[in-house]
């Protein structure tokens, strides 16, 4: 056996061992992968779905090992997306070995998955993880006996401290290369089930030899007995096939249970039996730390205040940590980098438009991408911490009742909250929701959370028209967004997302301190992924917007630019809302880039031209003026996005900026139309970077399209109601 393996190794030294990593959620699987792969980890998505896929290729003792992280699952049943992915991979790709990560403190339930992995007939190595905690609890686990019973190698590991990693890799290499002597022992399922399995196995081999080749035989027989829908479909055997129908009918009659329940019972009976054999627990169990914390954190009276405090902290930290970095990135891009590029283009005597495209379109676009990176990093860090520590499940537990009323899940609260800071990390935060329906619905409502970038717009208009009540007006806009989100949640729940609710059934894992290294690796991978994938889209869009704003090249009157013409075309739509001027419409169009650019554009359009025309501009001044235009605003996007709570300071800042053109605004808007304009800005559509986040997170433009479509309709209707209602009440127009 050994020699054969060595020979194979020598003949094909480049053979890569493919190893799938399976395990329950909260078994420390991610930490174990991080400990094995470190920064070699590549994060992506499983094809066609939004479930995360992690992979890494490592070298170990001259061999290449490709680790493929399967989604964390409790079972391999065909219902949840994660489970289907895991079993499809195992059945179709037939990896050389499986690492099954088990939580040693919760052996029985973790072994339930192990039973199903063993049925696949692939070599399994069990990583008995969180072994230190089990020892501290006084658990004694006889790994030798466990190996005997499973017919698989069992390696105690502590992934957070990298203990047992080499032993694990040794065992994986042995198992994957077929050098390990033992074969997975068939675990009998009790007399009559075993007999039925044997019978079905024989029938499959006789009648459908091609199926016997394609699938692990024992697994196939078990699935046919269970009446597994997906397997029946894949094999084209239909519902009433002759292979297992009769056998399963007999079993059901004999046990008075359906086959699925019967098999779950049988597997749990094995898991329980095995646990009894190998695990010794201390008699008296003391009150555990998790229980002590939960008594406070889930307390009837304290639960919600503690939750809100935790959320406030996370929000503050995310945006306070992100903010200075965003400013720094912004400063570098809009300052030196832009200046140098301009100088370079003058030096090589490139056409003016090329320089403009390079600085405003390309550098501006790259700057936009980078300004979001600190936010994404900070958000991912805290979300990963909340998940890894076990508090995320508690947050969902505390908030579920309220969120469920809106058709959402307890975990929806966190992404929605982040939306008040910036919609972009909020959309990414929906990945904490496992179910696709919950995820999409939450993302659809996030744009109604008034983000930080909309504040400059509110600050400008309330400063001009509601100086005495600006705080009240701004808070009412936030409340309007929240109320409409509730209404839309209920609306979606009853229309597009009608039907059965996704299950809530969720483990409340013990509290654990995630390792800093694991947090860092995870955060870094996410940030990198955003940078590459989302960055490409944002850059493309940024260049597209440059053309929109600067064509035809050399246009003198802003009214004649493509943007101005679009504004003129759209203006009549806004007539019934009280702001039918092309300037307002154009500002809303550029607001797609980032909401605070509504203000920038207004400044450019309403701003007086004569100041610039006093003396003929030199080339340098020309370029300087270009630098003042939209490209710079794009790079500034990140800054205001995070200036969430700085209402007062923003208002002051706006004062000097807007001094020259506030007169024009007060002529064109009335207090009532200013209010409708703000309401419209709040609701009308997600910004460009949010659009990319939608595309990136869901793999399709569909949901962004829906968010935009309902946003525009809602914005128009609400603005119409405010404006016309206000006029009826005699508030002027």
């Amino acid at each position, binding site marked *: 056996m050994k020699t054969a393996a060595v020979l194979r190794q020598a003949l094909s030294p480049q053979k890569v061992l493919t190893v799938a990593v399976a395990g329950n959620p909260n078994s420390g699987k991610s930490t174990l992968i991080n400990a094995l792969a470190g920064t070699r980890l590549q994060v992506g998505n499983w094809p066609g779905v939004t479930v995360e896929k992690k992979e890494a290729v490592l070298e170990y003792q001259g061999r290449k090992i490709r680790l493929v992280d399967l989604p964390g699952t409790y079972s391999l049943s065909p219902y*949840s997306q994660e489970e289907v992915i895991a079993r499809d991979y195992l059945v179709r790709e037939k990896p050389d070995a499986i690492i099954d990560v088990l939580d040693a403190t919760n052996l029985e339930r973790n072994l339930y998955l192990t039973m199903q992995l063993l049925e696949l007939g692939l070599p399994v190595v069990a990583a008995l993880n969180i072994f230190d905690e089990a020892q501290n609890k006084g658990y004694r686990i006889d790994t030798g006996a466990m190996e005997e019973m499973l017919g698989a190698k069992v390696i105690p590991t502590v992934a957070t401290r990298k203990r047992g990693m080499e032993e694990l890799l040794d065992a994986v290499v042995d198992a994957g290369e077929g050098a390990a002597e033992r074969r997975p022992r068939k675990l009998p399922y009790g007399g009559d089930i075993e007999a039925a399995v044997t019978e079905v196995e024989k029938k499959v081999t006789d009648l459908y030899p091609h199926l016997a080749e394609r699938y692990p035989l024992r697994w196939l027989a078990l699935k046919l007995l269970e009446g597994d829908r997906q397997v029946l479909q894949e094999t084209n055997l239909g519902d009433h096939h002759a292979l297992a129908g009769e056998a399963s009918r007999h079993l059901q009659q004999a046990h008075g249970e359906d086959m699925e329940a019967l098999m*779950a019972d049988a597997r*749990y009976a094995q898991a329980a039996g095995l646990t009894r054999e190998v695990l010794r627990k201390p008699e008296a169990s003391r009150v555990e730390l998790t229980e002590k914390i939960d008594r406070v954190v889930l307390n009837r009276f304290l639960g919600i205040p503690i939750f809100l405090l935790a959320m406030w902290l996370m929000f503050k930290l995310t945006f306070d940590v992100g903010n200075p970095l965003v400013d720094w990135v912004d400063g570098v891009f809009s300052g030196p980098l832009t200046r140098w590029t301009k100088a370079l283009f003058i030096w090589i005597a490139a056409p003016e438009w090329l320089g403009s495209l390079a600085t405003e379109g390309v550098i501006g676009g790259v700057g936009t991408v980078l300004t979001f990176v600190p936010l994404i990093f900070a958000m991912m860090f805290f979300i990963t911490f909340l998940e890894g520590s076990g508090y995320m499940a508690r947050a969902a537990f505390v908030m579920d009742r309220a969120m469920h009323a809106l058709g959402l899940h*307890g975990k929806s609260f966190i992404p929605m909250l982040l939306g008040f800071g910036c919609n972009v990390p909020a959309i990414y935060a929906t990945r904490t929701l496992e179910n696709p329906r919950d995820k999409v619905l939450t993302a659809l409502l996030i744009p109604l959370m008034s983000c930080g970038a909309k504040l400059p717009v509110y600050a400008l208009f309330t400063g001009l028209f509601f100086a005495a009540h600006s705080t009240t007006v701004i808070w009412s806009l936030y409340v309007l967004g929240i109320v409409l989100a509730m209404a839309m949640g209920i609306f979606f729940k009853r229309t597009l997302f009608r039907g059965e609710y996704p299950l809530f059934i969720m*483990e409340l894992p013990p509290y654990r301190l995630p390792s800093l290294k694991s947090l860092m690796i995870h955060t870094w991978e996410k940030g990198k992924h955003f940078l590459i994938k989302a960055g490409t889209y944002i850059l493309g869009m940024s260049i597209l917007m440059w053309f929109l704003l600067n064509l035809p090249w050399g246009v003198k009157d802003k009214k004649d630019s493509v943007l101005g013409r679009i504004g003129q075309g759209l203006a009549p739509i806004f007539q019934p809302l009280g702001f039918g001027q092309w300037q307002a419409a154009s500002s809303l169009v550029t607001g797609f880039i980032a909401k605070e650019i509504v203000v920038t554009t207004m400044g450019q359009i309403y701003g007086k031209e004569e100041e610039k025309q006093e003396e003929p501009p030199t080339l340098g001044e020309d370029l300087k003026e270009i630098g003042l235009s939209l490209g710079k605003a794009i790079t500034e996007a990140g800054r205001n996005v995070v200036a969430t709570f700085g209402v007062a300071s923003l208002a002051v800042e706006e004062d000097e900026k807007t001094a020259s053109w506030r007169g024009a605004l007060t002529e064109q808007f009335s207090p009532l139309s200013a209010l409708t304009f703000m309401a419209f800005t709040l609701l009308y559509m997600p910004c460009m970077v949010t659009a990319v986040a939608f595309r990136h997170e869901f793999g399709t433009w569909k949901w962004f399209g829906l968010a935009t479509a309902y946003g525009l309709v809602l914005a128009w209707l609400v603005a119409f109601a405010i404006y016309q209602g206000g006029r009826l009440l005699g508030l002027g127009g």
Partner: protein
Amino acid sequence: MNLAKLSPGARGRITKIGAIGPMKRRLMDMGVLVGETVTVEKIAPLGDPIEITVKAYKLSLRKSEAEGIAVEVLP
């Protein structure tokens, strides 16, 4: 008697799982099986969901999900 009606601290033995399809399968996969002993630990501050202990770990589920689980109350 069903699981949703047990008060915190009460224990019960599962006699029947009325749920069907994915919910039943998920419950069974997580060890909520007929014959199993469950303890209701807590009720969320807003009255739903509930937290139970089953197979020595903690599980939370909505009352609507717990209603389908018939139990006999244990002393």
